[in-house]
């Protein structure tokens, strides 16, 4: 059935069509040309009414409403359609843009369900469903997991739009395949994820494994306190690192500086006192986090499982150090494993992970910031560049894309972009995703919760999808303040009753 006709100036990548009804953004259409059938995606849709063009006030609007109903020619439905390629090639996953633009006057029609299934729901290994096409609900939207591990993934959306649901869904799908996922869980969102093969780890830091700068960050020595940092560098000797009594040895070294009669050391005595206090304070405050006696932190991560690294107890700086440490170790291990396999070395296998790993960094704007360097950013960037070769995939999740380092973001081969209102964020996305058209980005403001634009290598084509809700995800939803207050009130009442009951009246003084 004819849906409309190509009009105006037509280009190989975009055409305008006048249609018999309003088309939805995200709807797929088919254009039959002499070269073959072409698939297009509606990127912008508009309706205009001749009766309402010069309306200046309420009364005229009201009169025009009646008039518009009478006139079947009153409405003009216009659709801007991005050309995705020849249908024949898209079925094989190749996007071939026609050399000759569709001639104005060419008819457009709806693609068949089979056409869409072959493209968006390929029955191939590695493709898993994450929901359905937003405008064609009967079509499963499948993504290629191989591509996200080899070419990375960015998940960008405002808060509450379904980022952690999508992370959970991808994790669940990888878990079904017995793959290894590591999530740096900054808000304790995933520890209660109720899927099989889950391994929750409270991220701790072994101070012995850090360098002096990292230790300074972990102990929360101020950024500008150069002398204090110098004291720590001097005190954090190899001997301290290897000592059984880590903290007391470290304190001894600082003590030595404090008591030293050396002229040079005397000058930094005041700072050394301060460092002493900081170390003492840190041992008390970060008792659960800084553990010099813990084994290799990487050994807690289990292959073939979903590993949730709970970093919610860590301060921002500590989390940064921890993330950097894990990323560094994981890259090293995967490198070793890949090289060993490649060379078929007979050396002792001293690596932990034999299969690819997918690492997800939540709140990426904190760890991979745009405006300053962090150690986590350094290692994330390195993985973004090199991880492909060693089977280490990176998932970057953020609600503030504008604050995420563009170098890292632009290395992401695939993206799921959900509702984004801020123009700065949209601009950053446009810069990071060359293939995403401005029209599609402009639609990001109108998406609902769970709706996402998928672009990049993990799909055959840019697509608008509704992501399936993960029932196994317990946390992460908005909290109801009203319910919580009601419960708190009830508890207060219980508390009053129970304490009143406990007080013996005769013991009360008048």
């Amino acid at each position, binding site marked *: 059935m004819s849906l409309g006709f190509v009009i105006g100036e037509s280009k190989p990548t975009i055409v305008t069509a006048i249609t018999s009804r309003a088309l939805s953004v995200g709807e797929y259409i088919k254009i039959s040309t002499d070269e073959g059938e072409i698939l297009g995606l509606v990127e912008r849709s508009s309706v205009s009414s001749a009766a309402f063009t010069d309306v200046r*006030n309420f009364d*005229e609007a009201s009169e025009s409403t*009646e008039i518009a109903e009478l*006139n*079947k020619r009153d409405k003009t439905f216009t659709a801007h359609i991005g050309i995705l390629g020849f249908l024949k090639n898209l079925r094989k996953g190749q996007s071939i843009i026609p050399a000759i633009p569709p001639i104005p006057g060419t008819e457009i029609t709806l693609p068949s369900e089979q056409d869409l299934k072959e493209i968006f729901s390929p029955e191939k290994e590695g493709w898993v469903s994450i929901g359905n096409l937003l405008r064609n609900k009967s079509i499963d939207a499948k993504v290629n997991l191989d591509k996200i591990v080899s070419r990375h993934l960015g998940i960008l959306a405002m808060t509450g739009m379904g980022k952690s649901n999508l992370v959970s869904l991808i994790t669940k799908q990888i878990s079904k395949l017995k793959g290894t996922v590591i999530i740096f869980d900054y808000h304790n969102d995933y520890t209660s994820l109720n899927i099989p093969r889950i391994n929750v780890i409270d991220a701790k830091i072994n101070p012995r494994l850090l360098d002096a700068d990292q230790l300074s960050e972990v102990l929360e020595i101020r950024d500008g306190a150069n002398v204090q940092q110098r004291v720590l560098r001097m005190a954090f000797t190899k001997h301290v690192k290897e000592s059984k009594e880590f903290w007391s040895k470290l304190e001894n070294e600082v003590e030595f500086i404090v008591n030293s009669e050396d002229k040079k050391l005397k000058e930094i005595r005041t700072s050394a006192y301060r460092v002493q206090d900081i170390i003492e304070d840190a041992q008390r405050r970060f008792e659960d986090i800084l553990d010099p006696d813990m084994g290799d932190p990487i050994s807690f991560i289990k292959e073939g499982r979903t590993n949730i690294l709970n970093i919610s107890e860590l301060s921002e700086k500590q989390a940064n150090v921890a993330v950097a440490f894990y990323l560094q170790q994981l890259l090293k291990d995967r490198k070793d494993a890949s090289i060993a396999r490649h060379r078929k070395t007979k050396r002792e296998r001293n690596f932990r992970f034999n299969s690819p790993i997918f690492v997800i960094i939540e709140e990426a704007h904190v760890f991979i910031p745009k405006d300053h360097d962090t150690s986590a950013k350094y290692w994330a960037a390195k993985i973004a560049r090199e991880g492909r070769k060693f089977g280490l995939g990176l998932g970057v999740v953020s609600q503030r894309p504008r604050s995420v380092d563009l170098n890292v973001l632009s290395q992401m081969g695939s993206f799921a972009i959900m509702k984004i209102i801020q123009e700065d964020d949209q601009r950053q996305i446009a810069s990071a995703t060359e293939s995403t058209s401005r029209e599609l980005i402009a639609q990001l403001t109108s998406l609902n919760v769970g709706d996402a634009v998928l672009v990049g290598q993990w799909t055959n084509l840019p697509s608008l999808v509704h992501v399936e809700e993960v029932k196994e995800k317990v946390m992460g939803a908005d909290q109801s303040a009203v319910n919580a207050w009601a419960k708190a009130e009830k508890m207060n009442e219980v508390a009053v009753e129970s304490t009143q009951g406990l007080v013996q009246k005769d013991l009360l003084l008048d």
Partner: protein
Amino acid sequence: MLSILKGPKFEQILQKARDNWIEFTPTKEEVVTAGIDSSFNNTKFQGIELWATTAVSVKSDGEILVDLHKSGLGSADDISSIASKMEIEACEKTVDSVDMVLMDGSLHSQLMTRQANLGASIVRIMKKKDNVIFIAKTSNTKKQFENLGSLAGDIFYYNHVTNSPGFSKIFVEKKYGADKIISSTFVRLSDSTPIIKLEFLGDQHDENEVKSIMNKLYKTSVGGYPYALKLAHNNCKISDKELAKMVSLLGLSNEIGSREVLG
């Protein structure tokens, strides 16, 4: 200069306009109307002119009843007359198929000034069913208050003294001959909308007929103006762009000597 807006003479004219005005709020009455309009355009092209004229008759529901086009190369002196002829042709083809035919513009101007030679055919078509009305958005005629020394057009004074729906007493002009009597009235279809001028042929029109016509017009009007006429206007515009297309269609754009090469 301000005597147009102030002074005893001005007040006298306003009072007369007030006296002439009959308040009437129309109610919607079902009717099939068609609006007719024409347009023309021309472009100079290597010493000659390419001209195009069009006339259209369209119903309020968007159905186009008549769509006429003419174009040619040559002197464009008489294209307005060609357009007027086509308008009359469109009217002739429409009068039998609708209840009311709305012509854009002024009958007075059609009969007496612009295209006096077409007068006979206009009269013939208007008399056929007596269902043709001329409607003008703007009017410059200074007939009704000229004996009071009016400086502005009649419509100016009615606009000044009224704001509500209604119409002015019918003004009959007989000086063009017995078969070319024009009855006119200024009408406002709804509150605070611009006044339009209705013109009928003959002198047999009364206030009840005006009321009935207002009811019929009101049904399909936007902002006090009949939608069929707006549709007709929109459908018969010939833009410069369209003329450029015609030049291209006629294969003239690549003629040697085209001035574009100088650009």
